[in-house]
């Protein structure tokens, strides 16, 4: 039982240590002599990147910086834009408010945990930003948040300022609660079929349209009584007005098509189809609608609706001109999205830069933050990953991850800190308060949450259902 106490002290220790990992710079940096994969203008050999006030100020050869500015020798190394994961549940737990089918009033923002260790592990895989989404228990989940992984900074610094708001929708097996059998006497939650799922969504939009009309009429002084504020329908109105992006989880091509049709019926555009395991079957329709698709590189067969899938999905969508991103939906997979992008070159033959875009610029576009991140271009935020070799080789690793010119992950520093952390841990374990119950110490409090440190197949949404 001593483990719990150790665990608790370690957690507190981890909350202190990130600040030690962060460099002292204030967003000024000079990266020298790197192979730079820009994601927009090809690969530049022997190139320097000057970063000032967190922005990329210059890209070129023979650049210099003022005295005191940290210079990173990247000779022999590769530089890419920081990876952006357009489907993550990092920093959040309890991602499903499954009691209702429509929970558009719930907000990821309300439960961000800046000390979730998966942030640091993602940084160590070159990831700088993510779309944090609810789970997929409901046809309409809740309001998402777009963040940068500023490990060690206060939680209010994580959300990306100016990022368009989003909302999670979901279709298919998870929404139908396929893998949960109602207990005797328990009423199953509606919907239980794909038919019902579409009706729940249509009903919500009709209610939102009527709600909006009521407000429009009141504002135009056609009615005299102010309508009651409805937290469920406000975000739905924002969707209708094109102000909130819908990120819709789904697997089968028919359900994806149906949500596109509903959007067209109500006059808005779907932001992204999430997962899209069968999106390759309806690529022309997706292209015509103008939705992005955020896929798993090659996950399949972990559930029935994931059986009719192929790792060629990215290629087929790309060929049809669809904006494709590759997401992780997993605290494990987020650490190797570079290799997932590499697979796009193998399966069908997406060109190198377009493969890289699927984990950088394309998700930035899908999240509406491409004006400030997603590529190595002058004027953009200096969100950068530095790799020991080509990022598409499984034999390369991420050495440094930079957000807005500040170093948030540095492998060399991480390694030197291990001894110090081990010593701190050993010292903490010796404290009286951490004495094992077996040798007279007090029983620790049983923690209410458990580590999610286990490999799971496919989408975490399914695994997280309750």
């Amino acid at each position, binding site marked *: 039982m001593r483990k*719990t106490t150790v665990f608790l002290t370690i957690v507190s220790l981890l909350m202190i240590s990130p600040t030690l990992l962060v460099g002292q710079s204030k967003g000024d940096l000079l990266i020298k002599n790197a192979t730079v994969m820009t994601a927009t203008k090809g690969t530049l050999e022997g190139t320097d990147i000057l970063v000032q006030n967190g922005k990329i100020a210059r890209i070129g050869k023979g650049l210099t910086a003022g005295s005191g500015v940290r210079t990173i020798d990247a000779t022999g190394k590769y530089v890419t834009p920081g990876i952006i994961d357009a489907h993550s549940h990092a920093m959040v737990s309890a991602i499903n408010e499954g009691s209702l089918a429509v929970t558009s009033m719930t907000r990821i923002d309300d439960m961000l945990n800046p000390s979730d260790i998966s942030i640091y592990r993602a940084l160590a895989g070159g990831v700088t930003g993510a779309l944090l989404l609810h789970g997929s228990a409901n046809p309409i989940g809740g309001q998402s948040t777009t963040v940068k992984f500023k490990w060690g900074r206060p939680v209010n610094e994580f959300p990306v300022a100016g990022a368009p708001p989003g909302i999670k929708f979901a279709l298919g097996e998870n929404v139908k609660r396929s893998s949960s059998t109602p207990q005797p006497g328990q009423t199953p939650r509606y919907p239980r079929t794909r038919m019902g799922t579409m009706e729940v969504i249509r009903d919500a939009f009709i209610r939102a349209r009527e709600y909006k009309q009521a407000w429009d009429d009141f504002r135009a002084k056609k009615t005299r009584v102010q309508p009651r504020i409805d937290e469920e329908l406000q975000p739905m109105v924002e969707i209708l007005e094109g102000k909130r992006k819908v990120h819709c989880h789904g697997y089968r091509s028919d359900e994806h098509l149906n949500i596109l049709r509903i959007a067209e019926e109500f006059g808005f555009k779907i932001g992204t189809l999430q997962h899209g395991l069968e999106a*390759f079957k309806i690529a022309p329709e997706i292209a015509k609608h103008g939705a992005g698709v955020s896929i798993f590189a090659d996950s399949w067969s*972990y559930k029935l609706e994931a*059986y009719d*899938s192929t790792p*060629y999905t990215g290629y087929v969508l790309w060929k049809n001109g669809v904006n494709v991103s590759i997401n992780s939906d997993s605290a494990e997979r987020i650490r190797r999205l570079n290799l997932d992008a590499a697979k796009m070159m193998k399966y069908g033959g997406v060109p190198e830069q377009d493969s890289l875009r699927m984990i950088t610029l394309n998700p930035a576009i899908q999240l509406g933050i491409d004006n400030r991140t997603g590529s190595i271009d002058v004027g953009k935020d200096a969100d950068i990953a530095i790799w020991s070799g080509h990022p598409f080789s499984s034999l390369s690793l991420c050495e440094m991850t930079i957000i807005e010119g500040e170093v948030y992950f540095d492998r060399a520093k*991480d390694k030197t800190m291990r001894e110090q952390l081990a010593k701190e841990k050993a010292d903490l374990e010796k404290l009286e308060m951490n004495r094992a119950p077996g040798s007279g110490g007090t029983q620790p409090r049983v923690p209410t949450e458990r580590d999610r*440190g286990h490999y799971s197949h496919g989408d975490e949404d399914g695994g997280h259902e309750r």
Partner: protein
Amino acid sequence: MNQIKISNALKFAFLAAAILVSGIAISAQSDASQQNKIGRAGTFAIVGARIVTVSGAVIENGTVVIRDGKITAVGVGAAIPSGAERIDGKGLSVFPGMIDASTNMGLAEIPQGANATMDVQEVGTMNANAKAITGINPHSSHINVTRVNGITTVLSHPTGGTVSGQGAVINLNGARQEDMAVVPVHSLVINFPRVTGGGGGFGGGGFGGGQQANFNDLIRRRDEAVEDLKKTFREVEAYAKVVEAYQKDKSLPTPTTSLRLEAMIPYVRGQKPIVFTAERERDIRAIAKFVADTKVKGIIVGGQDAWKAADELKKNNIAVIYTNIYGLPVQQDDPYDYLFEAPSKMLAAGVKFSISTGDTGAEARDLPYHAGLAGAYGLGKDEALKAVTLYPAQILGIDDRLGSIEVGKMANVVVADGDLLDPRTNIKYVFIGGRLIPLTSRHTELFDSFKDRK
């Protein structure tokens, strides 16, 4: 097979006749698509390729000859038998087929929501007689998807309970279970009792809901379970003696056959390996002690902390099938790369290991990238390749037949246009048991059906 260049017109004529004849014979036996899926036999010469033998030096511009299901020649300027189909190896590399030493291949099609496709775990805790080879679906779509990425052989085993059952070493080709079998009944899987309070998490530290179990109690509970297992082993030995005695002297009472006990005899007697599942150091040490006490042949599958118990593992000749590259460190304060680095630590500590996926089957094709990641985090490229070819062959005891490009070995051979461990590499040819396998799968079929849809 339009990539195959025939050396001269005479050979072409000979070959065409051979294909025609065999084609006729085949169509009389089964339908064409099925035949297509198991590839075709022949004599093949891969000429002018880079040969990564794994067991020896890399041979530049060499030739590999495949005949009668075996590798019959390897080297620069090796003689090409007349009638051999010639494969131009220019710009290509030849590798031994990769071996994934822990999967549920063919036993698990769709884990979530389609129980009817799951044959991984039997009811009860003692299922020694359950044999993977009788449950593997030779037509699982996972098989083709896996082999077209260069994985040609796997250990497929049941899981769950205490004694899960017996795994099979299979080639990823064959219309029937027996056609796939390399070692049909290979090893016994035991989920070794571990220190846990049933709460999971926190390294098996054990927190039952509201149950305030003392750590010493948890150790005691584990020790009791281990004693139960030892008792079962003694029962197996006693049972074997009774059966043997009866066979010598039929005047003795006829023993009642127990399939469960009978199945365990070769394992309890140390004739075949037992695969023990374990991750934590204390559990691995407990297994080493059990192996020493019972004198069985042990292999660990899992092995997160195995390097910490290197002394005991080496002393008891226990190898590790490491399945944690795509896993997250259990403790929040573990180094972020703790599980990526474990293979390099095992190498440094002298522990014999392979890298395997531990996957149900669908994602086993990622085996080369598991190895690559370990390679990046300290293991190095050459050892990483060995960890998915020669080392698993050695650990599974099939290195006389598989695991390297050597004359006399079974022709499980992969030809690729780059480094086998790199996700950008394309596999150009796959041979299994000397048969040239079509590079098609459920995925290429779906791709072909929809890629040009307007």
